């Protein structure tokens, strides 16, 4: 019997640590490692699941999300992510992706949005939201942010978001700006984007949702902000609350013209 004799070359993500001499060496090494990992980003598993969930009839009303309007019209997914947060006429609110999905899950599918918002990350319907944000953001991958700021509500949320960004409080006196207020800084070996200006393609707002290798979890912007506030020693920001939407508006407008790479891969 003739056996297939393929040249099998297993690609391993093994690489040699550069010497610990130069700090840039260590940080560059880690950047290389992450670049290798970008091929085969496990976020794709969430994207695939999200697509199924978008099209699947679910909830008490047994309806799919294909009638959900994310800003480009009912059911239009491509291009929606790079224009969020934005104002929605039906709710008369500026909303980000996650609050908009909650709306649709409640209004169209009959889920209880408040219950889902109160569900801890990584459990129950929150897992499905992870998949949905991965799917929706993936549909805009490679596109540039162009958040609308034509309406006063949108501009006001930007202004509120800016003030919240600089708001220092808690036992550590931290604001977002404490860590994200200067270029070229890092916490331990994790580089920090300067969010006081446009940090460029695929950085900061343009890199979330993301798959976090360290925990094997997919984090949307809501979870990222939540964990920021936890580390800032603040009290708990409500899921999809106005403060989080205001911050997303601020960061999104700051990233105008930059390319989204979401969902990306992170440490």
């Amino acid at each position, binding site marked *: 019997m003739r*056996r*297939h*004799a*393929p*040249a*099998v*070359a*297993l*690609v391993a*993500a093994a690489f040699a640590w550069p010497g610990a001499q130069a700090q840039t060496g260590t940080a560059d090494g880690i950047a290389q490692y992450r670049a290798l*990992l970008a*091929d*085969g*980003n*496990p976020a*794709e*598993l969430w994207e*695939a*699941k999200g697509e199924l969930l978008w099209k699947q009839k679910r909830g008490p009303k047994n309806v799919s999300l294909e009638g959900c309007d994310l800003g480009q019209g009912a059911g239009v997914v491509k291009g929606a992510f790079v224009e969020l947060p934005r104002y929605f006429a039906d709710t008369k609110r500026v909303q980000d992706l996650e609050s908009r999905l909650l709306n649709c899950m409640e209004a169209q599918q009959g889920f209880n949005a408040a219950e889902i918002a109160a569900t801890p990350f990584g459990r129950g319907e929150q897992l499905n939201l992870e998949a949905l944000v991965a799917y929706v953001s993936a549909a805009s991958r490679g596109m540039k942010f162009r958040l609308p700021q034509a309406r006063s509500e949108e501009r006001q949320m930007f202004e509120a978001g800016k003030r919240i960004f600089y708001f220092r409080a808690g036992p550590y006196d931290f604001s977002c700006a404490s860590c994200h207020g200067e270029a070229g800084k890092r916490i331990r070996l994790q580089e920090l984007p300067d969010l006081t200006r446009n940090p460029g393609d695929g950085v900061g707002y343009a890199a979330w949702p993301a798959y976090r*290798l360290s925990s*094997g979890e997919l984090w949307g912007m809501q979870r990222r902000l939540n964990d920021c506030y936890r580390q800032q020693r603040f009290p708990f920001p409500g899921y999809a609350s106005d403060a989080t939407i205001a911050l997303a508006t601020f960061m999104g407008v700051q990233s105008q013209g930059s390319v989204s790479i979401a969902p990306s891969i992170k440490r």
Partner: protein
Amino acid sequence: MSDPMRIRAQVQGSGAVVRVLMSHEMETGLRKDAAGKTIPAWHITEIVAALNGQTVMTAQWGTAIAKNPFTQFTLKSAKAGDKISISWVDNRGDKRTDEAVVA
């Protein structure tokens, strides 16, 4: 029931490059939970790749492979339309097979 694998197989020269992303917790059995109890080992032990029904690669995996593992290999000879199937078995005896067509 585990989540589907993502398999991409593309023609390259006279062969093909196959890339597979699997969904699996890959617990090493060395971690402890918040209460201090060891989380039991749960990981893929073997993967088998087949081209048009014939085995072309097998691998024994253990605790060094990360969660949601990605693997890539090249086939010396394959053509568009060939069927690739990837199967895994884990230490609990769970298994899964997914298929894709070489593009």
